């Protein structure tokens, strides 16, 4: 691992995205528009206040999962990954470079989404906005890490998109958006305790309602961190210099 190579990789990923203004626009604007749509749907109820915080967790997670898994799959298929691994690039440099680049995008995306949700849609955040952003960022990095992992098990773009229903949808269904987690059947509640997105949504709800201490919220972020490290370690094991 080497800071110069990691930063060069992150810079290169950002350069690639810069050549694709449409992707930047979609990344930054679409989550905000969807949050606006949701607020409009529930304009005369207090539903938005209940599920709005969870939405802030969902978008960075889903979008970063998709973008990263497709970007890494492209590296594998185009031969650039093989070239890089035949060069003195460490596997950690590659993965951290990607994580860094997409985290920066995630910060921008989450900032716009939170600003819009609070100032335009009237979402009330009782706790610290910074903690909210910290959770959203951890969530985006988690999406990036899982995307890197998923790309290792996909041979084609079609397959990698199919990993979204496999890895992402169950976490959304069990995360407490549709039904609070403590009202789920006991088995499902136990499963949801082991899904990282549940902890992200719990943390965001707690920040919004200011119902838990900052230490508890950092504890949830630490759980997300453990999942991130696990996914990155597994992902780097799947990056092989020698392939059959």
């Amino acid at each position: 691992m080497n800071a110069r190579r990691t930063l060069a990789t992150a810079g290169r990923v950002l350069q690639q995205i810069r050549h694709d203004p449409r992707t930047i626009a979609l990344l930054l604007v679409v989550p905000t528009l969807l949050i606006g749509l949701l607020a409009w749907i529930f304009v005369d109820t207090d539903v938005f206040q209940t599920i709005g915080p969870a939405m802030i967790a969902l978008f960075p997670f889903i979008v970063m999962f998709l973008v990263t898994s497709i970007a890494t799959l492209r590296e594998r298929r185009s031969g650039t990954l093989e070239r890089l691994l035949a060069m003195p690039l460490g596997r950690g440099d590659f993965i951290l470079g990607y994580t860094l680049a997409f985290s920066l995008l995630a910060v921008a995306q989450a900032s716009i989404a939170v600003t819009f949700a609070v100032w335009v849609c009237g979402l009330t955040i009782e706790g610290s906005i910074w903690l909210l952003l910290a959770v959203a960022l951890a969530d985006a990095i988690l999406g990036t890490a899982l995307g890197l992992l998923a790309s290792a098990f996909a041979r084609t773009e079609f397959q990698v998109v199919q990993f979204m229903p496999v890895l992402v949808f169950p976490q959304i269904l069990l995360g407490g958006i549709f039904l609070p987690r403590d009202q789920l059947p006991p088995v499902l509640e136990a499963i949801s305790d082991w899904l990282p997105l549940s902890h992200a949504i719990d943390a965001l709800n707690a920040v919004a309602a200011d119902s838990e201490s900052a230490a508890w919220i950092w504890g949830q972020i630490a759980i997300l961190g453990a999942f991130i490290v696990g996914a990155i370690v597994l992902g780097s094991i799947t990056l092989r210099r020698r392939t059959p």
Partner: protein
Amino acid sequence: MNSAAPAVDIRNLQVRRGTTDVLHGLDLSIARGGVVGLLGPSGSGKTTLMRAIVGVQVVASGTVTVLGEPAGSVPLRHRVGYVTQSASVYDDLTVAQNIAYFSSVLGAPRSDIARVIDETDLTPFADRVVATLSGGQRSRVSLAAALLGAPELLVLDEPTVGLDPVLRVQLWELFHRLADAGTTLLVSSHVMDEATRCDRLLLMRDGAMLADDTPQALLGATGASDVEGAFLAIIASRGDVDADAAPPPARHGPGRRRHRHRRHARSVGER
């Protein structure tokens, strides 16, 4: 660092891809310096052999030693340049951005960026996005990246495919300039005309080395007038031209389209 060690030394190399044996017990030694041509039809194992030398191929058994070190080991990653058959560069970056990135991964001097872009005649396209370039230009970007950091061994998998004759001649001149400066080049090709430009030829078929000699010696020994004829003579002398095995390798195999193109090429000169 052992500078007396051969560029490549392979002992009893066996490679299996899926259920097929691609290389079965191959031995090969390549001395330092010069341009070594690796010729053979598509599917003969050229790419697999090159991948084994670069150290990105899972090997069933045997040893591959490159510049005195085990293939793919850490010290070799600065000393071996590799160009895959399809251009392995980023389509959504400009030529200069691609080369700058690979250069910082290698830790090559900044001046190398302009040098390799110039050596591959890409200076007019330096600020063009790779996706907008032609196939030949894209493969030259890939080649330029491999020239970064002046590697001691360059492994080039079909670097001249799709290039116009003038560029092809220029690239071969570049290869010889690099060889004169002490670089060892292993260049694969299915275009037999290019064989005469090599200092040494390796003829490969069905995962085995058929011949390993200078072009002149090969022609002399077989009495053939060109390398393709020599290739055929060697296969015939081994008595393994049977009904369903290949007729002339350059006219058979999965790369049919390119070979047809090549045959046409011979009648109109190069291209």
